[in-house]
């Protein structure tokens, strides 16, 4: 059996009631991803709640409260495969109060499946989601211009949304945009091409997802990184250092620098989970390595190949703030970056992003769901790359010291569109 199937991770993006969950339900039902008993359960639940024969949103809206209120509260993960590709789908909520959950779903996505109600155009919440998706490094967009049946399949109505989307997506720097006129409810142009849109020659939503190259990985290397998670004691007294490879592949014999200490050494042996001792390990594999020199490396340290990351206690970062109380200069939090947790303090607030205009305005606090530019100081030195160069060493979360809740997503540096 072929195990090297191409995988695309996607997250739905858009405002409440534009039809995200219905679109995912339609996509899964029409590609026959649901088992018979799961489809029966959706039909039964639809009948019981008096919402017609088949409420497609119930395929992913699995919580009692979601079905009662007809909204999505938290991300649902679904797994689908077609002969061309495997998909990991994060169906995200649209409500502004659940923006933190949308960011959770989008943080691991390669592509955003944007749903826009053709009659309403781009709402502020959709702009916020697009801005967050762009900040998080999502590259591709497939846009379902939805509820086309409600505007009698008007090409002019479709084009007006396409123009709006292209303007915003251009400002945010997305590379590949495909807009599809759809009715998720009726199934037009989701999996099967519609008879109602003879004026549209592009792909269906499924075809656009199957052929998108947003999941294609670039060859540009910004240096291998191995954040150390755990020290393994070997029989006979030696030690190996375990972690997940990112940035670039690691090879036996590679010259690496142990940071933050700054000690140069070599990878003298490398061990993968599946193949055991080997010559190299690609990105995404959990491995353990032995080093050519005695060091006291431990959890929180990082092994890096050239070009080396920065070692610093002061970071300029872009943050999405999810806390209930405002973030201000002087706020004290914990920060988790790679495998290190350290006390942190906000020493400056450089601006608050207006998601409608993408302008950065002056402000003295970030309120819940605001995006802002901050200056941070940490108690321990961190080993960081710019987020645009490396998603692992460029990202961090902020943690409330009392409740231990995760209250912010942070990205080192500043996106080019801000």
């Amino acid at each position, binding site marked *: 059996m072929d*195990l090297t199937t191409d995988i695309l991770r996607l997250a739905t993006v858009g405002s409440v009631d534009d039809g995200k969950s219905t679109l995912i339900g339609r996509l899964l039902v029409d590609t026959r991803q649901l088992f018979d008993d799961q489809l029966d359960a959706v039909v039964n*639940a639809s009948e019981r709640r008096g919402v017609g024969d088949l409420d497609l949103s119930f395929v992913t809206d699995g*919580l*009692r409260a979601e079905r009662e209120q007809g909204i999505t509260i938290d991300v649902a993960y679904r797994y689908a495969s077609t002969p061309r590709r495997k998909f990991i789908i994060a169906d995200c909520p649209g409500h502004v109060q659940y923006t933190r959950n949308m960011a959770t779903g989008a943080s691991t996505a390669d592509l955003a499946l944007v749903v826009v109600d053709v009659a309403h155009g781009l709402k502020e919440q959709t702009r916020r989601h697009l801005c967050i998706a762009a900040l998080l490094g999502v590259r591709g967009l497939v846009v379902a211009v939805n509820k086309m049946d409600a505007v009698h399949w008007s090409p002019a109505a479709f084009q007006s949304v396409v123009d709006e989307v292209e303007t915003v997506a251009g400002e945010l720097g997305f590379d590949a945009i495909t807009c599809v006129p759809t009715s998720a409810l009726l199934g037009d142009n989701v999996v099967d091409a519609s008879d109602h849109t003879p004026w549209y020659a592009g792909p269906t939503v499924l075809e656009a997802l199957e052929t998108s190259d947003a999941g294609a*990985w670039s060859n540009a290397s910004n240096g291998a990184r191995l954040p150390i998670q755990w020290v*393994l004691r070997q*029989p006979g007294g030696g030690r190996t250092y375990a972690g997940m490879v990112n940035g670039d592949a690691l090879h036996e014999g590679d010259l690496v620098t142990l940071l933050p200490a700054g000690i140069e050494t070599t990878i003298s042996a490398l061990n993968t989970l*599946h193949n055991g001792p080997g010559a190299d390990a690609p990105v995404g594999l*959990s491995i353990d390595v032995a080093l050519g020199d005695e060091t006291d490396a431990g959890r929180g340290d990082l092994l890096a190949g050239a070009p080396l990351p920065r070692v610093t206690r002061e970071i300029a970062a872009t943050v999405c703030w999810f806390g209930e109380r405002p973030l201000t200069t002087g706020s004290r939090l914990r920060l988790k970056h790679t495998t290190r947790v350290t006390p942190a303090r906000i020493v400056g607030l450089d601006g608050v992003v207006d998601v409608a205009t993408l302008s950065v305005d002056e402000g003295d606090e970030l309120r819940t769901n605001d995006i802002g530019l901050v200056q941070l100081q940490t108690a321990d030195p961190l080993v960081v790359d710019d987020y645009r*160069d490396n998603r692992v060493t460029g990202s961090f979360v902020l943690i409330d010291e009392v409740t231990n809740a995760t209250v912010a997503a942070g990205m080192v540096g500043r996106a080019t569109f801000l």
Partner: protein
Amino acid sequence: MTLTSTRPQTTADHLSLLESHAVYILREVAAECERPVLLFSGGKDSAVLLHLAVKAFAPGRLPFPVMHVDTGQNFPEVLAFRDQTVARLNARLVIASVQEAIDRGRVADPGPHGARNRLQTVALLDAIVEHGFDAAFGGARRDEDKARAKERILSFRDAFGQWDPRQQRPELWQLYQGRVNAGEHLRAFPLSDWTELDIWQYIERENVALPPIYFAHERDVVRRDAMWLAVNEFIEPRPGERVERRLVRYRTVGDATCTGAVESDAVTVEAIVREVATANVSERGATRADDRFSETAMEDRKREGYF
């Protein structure tokens, strides 16, 4: 202007990436939590989870105990498998006993033929308090059920063991943060992104040992609630039910009173992989009476502190 791609090239295959992600989660939680425990039922998912945990910390010993929440109504083959596995790995086994909870009056006895599945929650939460565990690894997968599809990989439980699906912590990138206050705990699900087919392909690739009831065998069964239930000390035929001898296997393993078998002639892992790839009914739909109480049976149990 275009965005820089921040994902570098990888040549790793799908199963190796799933394996690596699971091991990453196991190591993060073991490093950040004081007293983790791994829930081990003897079923295929927990067998895979335990296999991954052993690999994550090899050549060292498993840095946490394993816990079996024992309903007292088990398939004997599964209990034997549990004991062999624990002995082979020299692991520490903690048993959270539903029978003991009944004997101590913590829960009402549902009677000799009553399902004890739901009572596991009480035994599990009592054991977590008694041993002071602050994290429990489980083998749950998001493709199993619509409530599980909503759950984080690190799932926070309050001092009452409850899951609040409206107040889940944001979980960004692979920054799993496991901080809890005294009395609270985490559930950690390293197999979240695995499907049933992934599990079987991994069992095939790694030769993971399983209890024999996963493979086709002849057994006396009765048809009840559209499932084949084994006739044994816990299940007696009711009036009108006919005992038949059929070639069956188990697709999931739970309490012997509520886990059904499926008809199958698959006697090898390879044959099971083929069977799972073409199945029309979900594994829980085919085999679990406990999910049929209501539309939100799993969510309701999870809120109370179930796996």
